[in-house]
């Protein structure tokens, strides 16, 4: 085991600032895997949030610990509802005949009409949400606020526990990118057709969303006391859209949000699902040493390391198929390769998106152990 000379927080901040660390930090995205390890059914999880939080804490110890918690509480409860569009109907394991073996899924349905673009443009995002969320969820604004407050209380209580253990939390707020919010609300095919049929209107709506998104995230990070925002990106990548579209519609909004965050002392964790390889050069236009580029095993992470060298920390990307189907040796081999190529500085070892619910425990443990035991750059 490598002799550690830094606290987890110092290690993570060194990675963010591209400074030398004592070893590569490791932060897995763990939620459902932990509760599965403790055989908590989805029903119990819903009835007793604290049992799940306890499972995550025990899982943390059984994995030998790691250097950062993605969030306090469960999953993403701290995000105010306005920064996360309802994405169709949530289908839980055990519901609609879906096996308990599966994780939570979303039956993506159109929840926003073409006319709603005008409402966003004319009223702004937050004012639109006051009509939109009750319409889609069937809940009153008061009830939505009450639930959000309940989740924030859980977050704050759990955050105290992790603070006592000196484990930093790297999401004090969550925002889903403007384009992904609309894509989830309209569905991906429909949003794509909207871009084709009414590009000016979609662009105006995207631009109108930004000021409220910034205000919402600043309020959330203040409430959580954690100066980090998780920005969920997926639907705008080069896997979906050409760079001309990215430059005109998506990147300007991301840049405005990130710049505003950095101006307010907030660090940005860019969670980039799907293939962003083509878009990587744009990230060099975001503030240096204030953001993390977190890829999910589909983007070429080694290319990300090359393109962002000296500018941005890279985080990733042990593939879910490897932690589920691979051997322990294969996991170690892949983690060592990541550390060899990317790990000298500015790298955080992470699962490729979330650790799969059905990953092999020994493989996840091997990922943590490799970070603790392997650092050839000292």
């Amino acid at each position, binding site marked *: 085991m490598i002799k550690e000379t830094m606290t987890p927080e110092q290690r993570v901040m060194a990675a963010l600032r591209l400074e030398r660390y004592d070893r590569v930090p490791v932060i897995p995205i763990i939620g459902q895997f932990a509760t599965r390890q403790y055989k908590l059914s989805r029903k119990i999880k819903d009835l007793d949030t604290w049992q799940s939080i306890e499972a995550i804490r025990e899982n943390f110890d059984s994995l030998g610990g790691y250097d950062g918690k993605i969030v306090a509480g469960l999953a993403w409860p701290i995000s105010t509802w306005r920064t996360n569009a309802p994405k169709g109907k949530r289908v839980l394991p055990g519901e609609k005949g879906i096996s308990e073996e599966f994780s939570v899924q979303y039956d993506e349905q159109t929840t926003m009409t073409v006319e709603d673009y005008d409402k966003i443009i004319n009223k702004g995002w937050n004012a639109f949400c006051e009509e939109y969320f009750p319409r889609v969820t069937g809940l009153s604004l008061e009830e939505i606020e009450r639930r959000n407050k309940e989740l924030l209380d859980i977050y704050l209580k759990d955050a105290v526990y992790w603070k006592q253990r000196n484990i930093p939390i790297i999401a004090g707020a969550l925002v889903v990118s403007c384009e992904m919010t609309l894509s989830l609300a309209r569905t991906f095919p429909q949003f794509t*057709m909207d871009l084709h049929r009414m590009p000016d209107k979609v662009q105006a709506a995207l631009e109108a969303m930004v000021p409220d998104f910034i205000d919402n995230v600043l309020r959330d990070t203040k409430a959580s006391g954690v100066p980090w925002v998780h920005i969920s990106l997926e639907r705008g990548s080069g896997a979906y859209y*050409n760079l001309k579209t990215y430059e005109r519609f998506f990147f300007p909004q991301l840049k405005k949000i990130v710049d505003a965050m950095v101006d307010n002392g907030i660090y940005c964790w860019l969670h980039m699902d799907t293939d962003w390889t083509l878009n990587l050069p744009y990230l060099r236009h975001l503030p240096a040493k204030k953001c993390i580029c977190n890829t999910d095993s*589909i983007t070429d992470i080694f290319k990300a390391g090359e393109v962002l060298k000296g500018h941005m920390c890279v985080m990733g990307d042990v593939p879910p198929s490897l932690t589920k189907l691979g051997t322990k040796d294969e996991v170690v081999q892949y983690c060592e390769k990541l550390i060899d190529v990317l790990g000298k500085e500015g790298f955080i070892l992470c699962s490729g998106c979330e650790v799969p*619910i059905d990953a092999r425990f020994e493989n996840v443990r091997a990922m943590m152990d490799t970070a603790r035991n392997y650092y050839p750059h000292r």
Partner: protein
Amino acid sequence: MSELSSALANLEEEKVARIIKQELGTGKDSMGVLTELRKGMDEVGQRYKKGEYFLSELIVSGEIFKDAMKVLEPTLKKDGGGPATKVVIGTVKGDIHNIGKDIVATLLKGVGFEVYDLGIDVPVKAFVDKVVETKATIVGMSGLLTPSFESMKETVDALKEAGLRNKVKVIIGGGVVTELVQRHTGADAFTDDAMEGVEIIKKWSAKSN
């Protein structure tokens, strides 16, 4: 390329609708119109391969094609048409993600395959039954979550048990599907790219015809 093929390849939605109306109005047979549309879809595929088009252009071309088919379909049956390779496709048991599967199904129809889309959360038996019923020679299974790997494997095993495995080629697809998953499930091919999936199926079809 004809004007109609070009209009589809260039994603000119209104122009495609207008030309189809004109051509059918002047007595052109619907099979001939469909052939032009398929040439347009082929060109979309070529542009995707060259990196000029992205997934979004596949979606737009697919939507234009689907709308065109709504106009053509009522008359197509009368015109008949040659035998097409049959593909059974679906998102496997337990998984309800449909976007990738829907795109592949539309693209396959666009280039002339006879597609039996079983939808999402498709039981193992439904895949087997549909292959028996249609005598399809290709099965496409989609899934986005790791537990769906087991559903894919169970489906391949069931095809074996039914004595169909050597009569069908199986391709699996999804964002997290890798070679490791292909080996685990016993499929013949894997892809995380809709158009690549269509190309693999086209090659299989060309070999068997």
